[in-house]
């Protein structure tokens, strides 16, 4: 009997991502065939040459050529990337194979904070004043010409790693040297020209929100607007709580959505998920960063969409299912987020050290409205605080009738957790 037609998705999964289960299981639920591409070979690649392939994620053009060779034998119908680096690879492959996606130029511009700033500023999108500096420069000299308060950041690191606020020249010098030390670490120093620069930009006061969206033919559909109720005023910018729906006034939300749409247009993004950080103050909405990828880590678990009408009745749809459907050109259900308020806490790093034990998970889980407490770090692993670190020890999820109740539940659950660490050797 002939097997029913099933489209094949190329899923770009770096070996160190948290996103594997969410995307692989979403593809299974949708009944699409999947080829998982990673930067390192799976031991099963020979046994399952249709389902597994190794691509050179460090060289998008090479990866595109490899994907073309693969697609001769195994036709591909869509491609999904899960993070910043693979989004550039996905764009190169989409261009090469004529799949739905963005141009390499657009995604590369989104990937680089300086290029992004330049394009947004040129298009009239509100962004902080910025200057590009080389890490070989003398910070004492640079400090005298800077405006304060300002924020110093590497051009490509994710999760606010290496992002530091400075309020005066001594603070600037200290921040600069700290970032210098991060970028001089061997695994980053060899990453290319971007790792030899620092972006210095004006600090924008105001409430920060995260915009999760899906772009179709250049038009942005906002899927969720997350409040970040903990002030992100520095000196470091480790994220904690995301709660949706936003409690900002409707006009402020409209300004934020318009700002994100303007940024999408300015960067030339045409298709796929975006995740943007936007600040809002009495002067309006300011685009802080926009990435051509979905929300990171486990945070997508905070999003569910009331859209799945199946043979077995109504069911929720995950963000990953929406992204896969979009990539394959499958019919998209309505993109309405569930009725309930929802939130996630990226559990703050309690301090530097080797993780030995986490206590109170059961108590945290028992807090009303809390759905899940996930400890993602393994015992024996190093906890590294920001700005050098970029990895949270875990995540807490909650749902409830109001954003206020969800936020309170997340804080109550977090208060019950106790991390036992010991100093590193």
């Amino acid at each position, binding site marked *: 009997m002939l097997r029913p037609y099933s489209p094949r998705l190329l899923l770009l*999964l770096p*070996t*160190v*991502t*948290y996103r*594997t*289960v969410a995307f*692989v*299981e*979403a593809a*299974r*639920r949708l009944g699409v065939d*999947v080829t*998982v591409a*990673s930067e390192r070979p*799976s*031991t*099963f690649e020979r*046994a*399952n040459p249709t*389902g*597994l392939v190794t691509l050179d994620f460090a060289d998008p053009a090479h990866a595109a050529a490899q994907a073309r060779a693969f697609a001769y034998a195994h036709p591909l119908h869509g491609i999904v990337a899960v*993070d910043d680096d693979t989004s550039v690879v996905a764009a190169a492959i989409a261009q090469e194979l004529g799949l739905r996606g963005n141009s390499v130029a657009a995604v590369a511009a989104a990937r680089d904070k300086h290029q992004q700033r330049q394009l947004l500023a040129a298009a009239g999108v509100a962004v902080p004043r910025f200057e590009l500096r080389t890490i070989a420069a003398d910070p004492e000299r640079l400090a005298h010409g800077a405006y304060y308060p300002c924020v110093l950041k590497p051009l490509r690191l*994710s*999760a606010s790693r290496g992002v530091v606020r400075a309020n005066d020249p001594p603070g600037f010098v200290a921040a600069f040297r700290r970032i210098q030390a991060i970028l001089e670490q061997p695994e980053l120093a060899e990453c290319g020209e971007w790792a030899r620069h620092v972006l210095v930009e004006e600090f924008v006061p105001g409430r920060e929100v995260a915009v999760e969206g899906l772009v179709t033919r250049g038009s942005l559909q906002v899927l969720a607007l997350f409040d970040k109720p903990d002030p992100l005023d520095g000196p470091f910018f480790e*994220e904690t709580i995301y709660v949706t729906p936003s409690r900002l006034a409707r006009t402020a939300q409209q300004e934020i959505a318009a700002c994100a749409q303007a940024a999408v247009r300015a960067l030339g993004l045409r298709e796929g998920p975006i995740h943007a950080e936007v600040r809002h103050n009495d002067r309006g909405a300011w685009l802080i960063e926009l990435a051509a990828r979905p929300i*990171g*880590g486990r945070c997508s678990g905070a999003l569910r969409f009331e859209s799945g009408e199946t043979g*077995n*009745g*109504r*069911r*929720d749809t*995950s963000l990953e299912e929406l992204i896969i459907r979009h990539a394959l050109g499958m019919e998209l259900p309505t993109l309405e987020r569930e009725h309930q308020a929802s939130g996630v806490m*990226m559990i703050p790093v309690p301090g530097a050290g080797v993780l030995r034990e986490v206590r109170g*998970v*059961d108590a945290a*889980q028992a807090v009303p409205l*809390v*759905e*899940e*407490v*996930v*400890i*993602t770090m*393994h*015992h*024996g*692993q190093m906890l590294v605080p920001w700005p050098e670190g*970029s*990895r*949270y020890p875990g995540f807490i999820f909650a*749902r409830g009738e109001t954003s206020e109740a969800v936020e309170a539940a997340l804080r109550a659950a977090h208060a019950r957790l106790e991390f036992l660490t010991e100093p590193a050797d």
Partner: protein
Amino acid sequence: MSAEVRITAEPIDNGRCKFLVSEPVHAGGVRRFASPDEAQGSPLAQAIFAIPGADVSEVIVSGNLVTVVKRSPAPWPAVGKAVGQAIRAALAAGQPAVASKPAAAGSATADDALYERVADLFDSQVNPMVARHGGRVELIDVQDAVVMVRMAGGCQGCGMADVTLRQGIEAMLQQHVPEVKGIVDITDHTAGSNPYFAAAKK
């Protein structure tokens, strides 16, 4: 039994969730229950099948892990709390939460035959492959043509464990033992102390 039984829920998707319990729930290997009838004599499985509105279709108990599969769209937070209560009540009752596996008969005989073939595949092909990454996959049981595995070594807690399971092991089973209807990973991936690829980003 200690005073506090800690249970951590680990949803795989909206239909399937693993519950890691701080104490052993069933020490006699793996038990899989595919219907309330099969759960007769096993108080924990009976209680889970009886959770109102959950429409539970499958319960798998092994050591400290209870895996629950449901058909209802009810979110895991609501169902999970009822599962937690059922586990605590079963452990507090002072009698086995799950009955021992009955003697082989009918489908169990077919499962035994499948077990042999799957075990052979694991020995000859699957484990030599995962061993290259310091991993190991243990065949725990075959029940009603569903294969239950536990991942260890470099596979336990590995960021790519689900790829290994779905694109590797499941694909090989489909090719070599097509009678297998499914595969269930009963690994506690949060306990992995030496994963080959620990997830490293936020």
